[in-house]
């Protein structure tokens, strides 16, 4: 089997739920060896989170867990026990990377803060992914997807459009888990950067990643406008500066259409059969269109309501006007596009059976992304890791299990 881009990298993932595990998954799917450390018993919180087949909760059948933990080795370990701490350090000594998303205070109390671990393994890259980072007044505050999303400033300007009297609606968290996923993604990039730094210096370092910042940095242009122009954003941005973008009702669904700029506006009104209103002064150039965009939208929608999503999308695209139907998960899973791109991964899991889930969003021509093994069963690789790697005997395993160490 062809080697993968990150083959040979040894990663310990001491993380729960989404942020840390997504970071670990990105590395594992490209060939890094990721040893996932879960607490004995319930294991990773995402095992309890679902979705579950037939809605029957089962620790080995959580869709979220199955997706986020492909290609990892799974061990159980109670790092709070003395033996557990020993073993944890044993793993760290052999690792290039540690990914953790635990409360900073807890990490310090356990003596697993970077200063301590680097003494064990100076080459270690320790990536800490937490809601508010390793320093600052909120450091020890609790958070979750909802809180992070709102504290990043993104919720306040969401949704951008399509809601009447938005002022009376609460700011909106986006689709679930986005905050955690973004944090994990950022972690993966930062981690790889630190690995490169290590190639020069031979030394590892700590990556201190704050989920709040990871999200806030998505608003760089909104923030930029604030810092540079001193403009505060209103809840309802409507047409975004520099780009008009809207959802339109069609006879059989919705489309998202961008026809604001001259180069799309001209063909679009032609497509609509150059109705009189469209050729009026009001919409002559971008500046005037911006002034009267709400009017334009209303008129456009009157027309789109008369036509089907399909006919509009097909013709619009032929005219290179950006336009797509507004899909649900169902349509995207079944879309010819992802079919043609061979995007979805089908994995056969011992307990969950055949599962279909998102593959890699990128294709590397030489070092493929692949699912070599599905998400681990809880503690599936205890023997492989503890006996083969760290030299404990099977009898030790039995004792450690009885002590609820593993």
């Amino acid at each position, binding site marked *: 089997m062809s080697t993968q881009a990150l083959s040979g990298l040894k990663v310990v993932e001491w993380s729960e739920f989404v942020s840390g595990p997504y970071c670990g998954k990105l590395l594992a799917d490209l060939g890094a060896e990721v040893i996932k450390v879960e607490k004995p018993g319930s294991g990773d919180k995402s095992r309890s989170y679902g979705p579950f087949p037939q809605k029957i909760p089962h620790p080995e059948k959580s869709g979220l867990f199955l997706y986020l933990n492909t290609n990892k080795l799974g061990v159980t370990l109670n790092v709070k026990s003395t*033996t557990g701490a*020993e073993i944890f350090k044993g793993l760290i000594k052999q690792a290039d990377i540690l990914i953790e998303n635990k409360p900073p205070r807890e990490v310090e109390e356990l003596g697993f803060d970077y200063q301590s671990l680097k003494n064990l393994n100076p080459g270690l890259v320790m990536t800490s992914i937490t809601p508010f980072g390793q320093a600052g007044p909120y450091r020890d505050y609790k958070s979750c997807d909802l809180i992070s999303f709102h504290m990043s400033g993104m919720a306040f300007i969401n949704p951008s459009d399509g809601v009447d009297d938005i002022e009376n609606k609460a700011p909106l968290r986006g689709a679930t888990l986005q905050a955690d996923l973004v944090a994990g993604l950022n972690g993966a990039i930062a981690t790889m950067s630190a690995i490169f730094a290590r190639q020069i210096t031979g030394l590892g370092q700590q990556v201190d990643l704050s989920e709040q910042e990871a999200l806030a940095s998505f608003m760089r242009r909104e923030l930029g406008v604030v810092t540079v122009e001193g403009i505060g954003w209103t809840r309802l941005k409507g047409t975004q500066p520099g780009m008009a973008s809207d959802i339109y009702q069609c006879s059989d669904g919705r489309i998202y259409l961008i026809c604001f700029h001259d180069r799309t506006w001209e063909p679009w009104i032609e497509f609509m059969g150059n109705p009189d209103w469209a050729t009026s002064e009001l919409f002559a150039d971008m500046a005037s269109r911006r002034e009267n965009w709400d009017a334009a939208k209303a008129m456009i929608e009157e027309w789109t309501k008369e036509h089907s999503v399909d006919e509009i999308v097909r013709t619009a695209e032929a005219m290179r006007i950006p336009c797509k139907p507004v899909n649900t998960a169902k349509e995207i899973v079944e879309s010819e596009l992802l079919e043609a791109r061979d995007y979805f991964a089908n994995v056969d899991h011992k307990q969950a059976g055949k599962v279909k889930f998102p593959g890699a969003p990128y294709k590397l021509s030489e070092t493929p992304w692949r699912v070599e093994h599905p998400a681990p069963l809880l503690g599936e690789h205890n023997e492989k890791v503890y006996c083969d790697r760290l030299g404990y005997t099977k009898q030790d395993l039995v004792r450690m299990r009885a*002590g609820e160490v593993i």
Partner: protein
Amino acid sequence: MQQLPLEGIRIVDFTAVWAGPHVTQWMAVMGAEVIKIESNLRPDMTRSFFSNVNTNLTMSAEYSGLNCGKKACTLNMTLPKARELVKELIKVSDIVTENFGGSVMDRWELGYSDLKKIKPDIIMYSGSGFGRTGPYKEFPAYAGIVEAFGGLCSLNGYPGGEPLPMATFGYADITSAEHGAFAILAALHHRSKTGEGQYVDLSMTEVVSCLLYEQIMDYTMNDRVQGLQGNWNSTMAPHSCYRCQGDDEWVAIAVSNDEEWKAFCYTIGNPEWTMDERFRDGLNRLKNQEELDRLIEEWTKNHTHYEVMEVLQKAGVMAGPTLKVAEVVQDRHLGERGFFIDVGHPDVGTVRFPRLPWRLSEGPQGNYEQPPRLGEHNDYVFAELLHLSKEEMARLQEEQVIF
């Protein structure tokens, strides 16, 4: 006045020695009317077990400890007439119990099939060392034999030492008896729903195997034969018994996790042990437990076993004195719970016996009447239950049927 659970249930009890009488002991205490069938030819063996004060076949400890609250009548079962008489008694009973060394009941034509004819819904209990079927069904058995054969002895002893007999008289007897009592109650439950009786065949050997499930599963799973562990445990350390101050005083201590270990070390004033390479964590403690036991004993030696329990338990560490028999009787906890009851006895005044090991929240705690003397209830049984006239009874005594 509230009833005992089994009031109204009558048992014809042929059991003798330990295993059998212990079955009916539970039933009697719970309110069943247990009628022991003995005779001067064959009194319950335990009546005659040598004893300093054993005057009249009543007061041996063995006998008294297992026959509270029962009734006793004397029938010479070697005679056909006696067997007829017993059948009458069985007709008005619910349960028949026996634990003969072989198929005596069959020879007496009192086997289950016979009894069913007399009383269709009868419940019959047979307790034996190896079961009433199979190659050893005729073999006599004592607890020690069954414990040896069942593998219990091979697990009783000091690490590296030899298999040893179990401590107390008839460990297998009593654990079997209790399984038997439970089975009978289950059969009763079924009868009260369906009206059907049945036959209960208990093998002490099989009871022992149930008790050794762990070693057996380890063998069936891993072909491993576990050896002697003494006071040690495969997963906990420290986990042993330590000498204390005073003459032959001992205390048992067990530490199951790091928190308890920390508490233990601080309590006995050796906090540094929590850092000690050898004892830092559970695995190392197990590997170095001989040394560990030695060090711990140096501490326990300076305290009485009760002191050790008090200080360690207050710190949340498992510990308990190794109680001597006398200490069990005097233990303040058992005392406060009233584990021992005083049974008045016509021959030696009050005697202190352990109750059965439970409390029921409602109602009387059980029937702990004094153990019956040989034939003490002949009148009750023959006159009241079987309606024999004075004359008939006299004649039967003549004929040594009632004997």
